[in-house]
């Protein structure tokens, strides 16, 4: 229990619409232990994206509590949430979301700028991570010069740069072909083996199959939660 990276209790989120409050998430309880590799699945509109935004500290819940590494972050202010996004979490998006005008190295180093690291240590750390994801030779290239799979690996390097406990990936293979998807999933597997907790959202069963635990959402609620035991 004390080792839970994520613990949510009765987490709910409602959006104001023309037809009144729409509950996108209806009081979800979930606990994710350190080192887990978890896939969140569900059809669109099931609330999984809303849940992911809350986990990622991009949004604050309407009801319930969210303990991130033991700290209740449900009601923190924007700057405190920004700090968590910077140091405790790493994000990987479907669309890679690299900044097009910056070199790969600067893209990877960007979170360190906001963390206040000096230039030399930023560079060194960014190089180290680019090498780790196999792109050490492309440090000075622009994102537009490399393939989608490579861009996603850079995005993963960026997510890792501040040594987070947790990686959140939202459809990380959604824009990739099956071969490249395999590569990315292998990389996630390696990271998980190093002890990093990984939570990914996907609607593809074969991607979810890489995870050790699968949680299904439907209509804002968790409908199933099972260990797959397969691993990567």
């Amino acid at each position, binding site marked *: 229990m004390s080792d839970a990276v994520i613990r949510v209790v009765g987490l709910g989120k409602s959006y104001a619409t023309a037809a009144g409050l729409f509950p996108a998430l209806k009081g979800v309880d979930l606990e994710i232990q350190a080192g887990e590799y978890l896939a969140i699945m569900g059809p669109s509109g099931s609330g999984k994206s809303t849940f992911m935004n809350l986990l990622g500290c991009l949004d604050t819940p309407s009801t319930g509590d969210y303990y991130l590494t033991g700290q209740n972050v449900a009601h923190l202010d924007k700057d405190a949430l920004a700090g968590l996004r910077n140091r405790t979490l790493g994000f990987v998006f479907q669309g890679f*979301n690299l900044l097009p005008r910056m070199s790969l190295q600067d893209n990877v180093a960007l*979170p360190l700028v906001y963390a206040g690291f000096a230039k030399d240590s930023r560079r060194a750390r960014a190089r180290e991570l680019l090498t780790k994801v196999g792109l050490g030779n492309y440090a000075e290239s622009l994102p537009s010069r490399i393939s989608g799979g490579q861009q996603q690996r850079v995005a993963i390097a*960026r997510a890792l740069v501040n040594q987070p406990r947790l990686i959140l990936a939202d459809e990380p293979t959604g824009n990739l072909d099956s071969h490249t998807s395999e590569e990315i999933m292998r990389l996630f597997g390696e990271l998980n083996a190093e002890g990093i907790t990984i939570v990914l959202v996907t609607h593809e069963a074969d991607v979810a199959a890489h995870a050790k635990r699968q949680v299904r959402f439907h209509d804002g609620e968790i409908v199933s939660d099972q260990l797959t035991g397969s691993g990567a």
Partner: protein
Amino acid sequence: MLKAMLGEAWLAMGANRLRTALTMLGMIIGVGAVVIMMAIGQGAQYAVQQTISTMGSNLFIVLSGSFTTAGVRSGSAGAPTLNVADANAIAELDGVVNVSPTHQGSRQLVYGSQNWSSQVLGTTPEYLEARAWNVVEGAAFGDSDVRSATRVALIGKTVADNLFNGDNPVGKTMRIQQNPFIVIGVLGSKGQNLDGRDQDDTVIIPLSTAQRKVFGTPFLGSVRMIMVQADAADNMQRVMDATTSLLRQRHRLREGQPDDFFMRNLSAAAESEAETTRTMSILLGAIASISLIVGGIGIMNIMLVSVTERTREIGIRMAIGARQQDILTQFLLEAVMISFAGCLLGLLLGLIIALAINAFTGMVIVISGSAALIAFAVAAGVGVFFGWYPARKAAQLDPIEALRYQ
């Protein structure tokens, strides 16, 4: 961190060069206009100041009164109502630093085969002091010359040029009407006064010599004019009032009887001229500032476009840990950098144009460091002021909304 952000602002500016350049152009024109207008305005002020300083400061003159004969009035300085004793009494008043009685008129000068008509001014050595007029060649006459009515003369530059034709006038003898005078000095050039009269077309001789040998006087010691210098501009009115009552008392004028002298404040005209040029230069500056504001609005406009265009980038930055303040700083820096760069170029452009104006029209311009500094401060202010709203808008974006933005 700030260094990293400066680098990023530079990148962002370079990403859309034409747009950045056009935005900057607004600032360049604004700052350039301010610099040019201030240079011209201050130049005009400087020119007036120069004229005033050639005239002497805090001066007023007392002219002897007019008389009426068979209904014909003589005009000022027609009646011999002032004399040297009046001047000496005025000198005793509080706040008076300098008094010089003068007696002047236009006379024909002759040297060798040349002749020239000029203003001949009989006065005391104090006159040169009051007008801050120095002798560039030779020497001035002293009180002893006034006491003994020697025939010595100081000549202005125009007289020297026209009468002596390149000869060194000092030590030469010229005639004022029939009387021979030794030229003992040449006066420094003062140029035109505010009315455009050539101040260098003058001969200055001792007062007593003028009274006895050149003009003659109706009464012993009478003078046409007394020039008085007060110790401070604030004291002028008080000294003038005191002079009036002193002279009325000395001339035994009863209550209700009009003054038998006239008084003119020489500095007042100059000061109003200075005031006019000051107002003009403020006006010019104000008009130029409008273009600076327009330039600022241009920056704001482009920054707003930039924030909208880069909404997704802002979302990404927020997702990886940028705080509101980081985003705010980033966009503010961009706005300030554009306005600063524009300011620098505008300063340069303004300088070049101002110098060109000076070179081609001969108009006096003054480029002061303080004007440049003010322009810089204003430009930075404009950058912050007009960059603030777009930057705040960027910083307050919702990260989820921003990330979804296509």
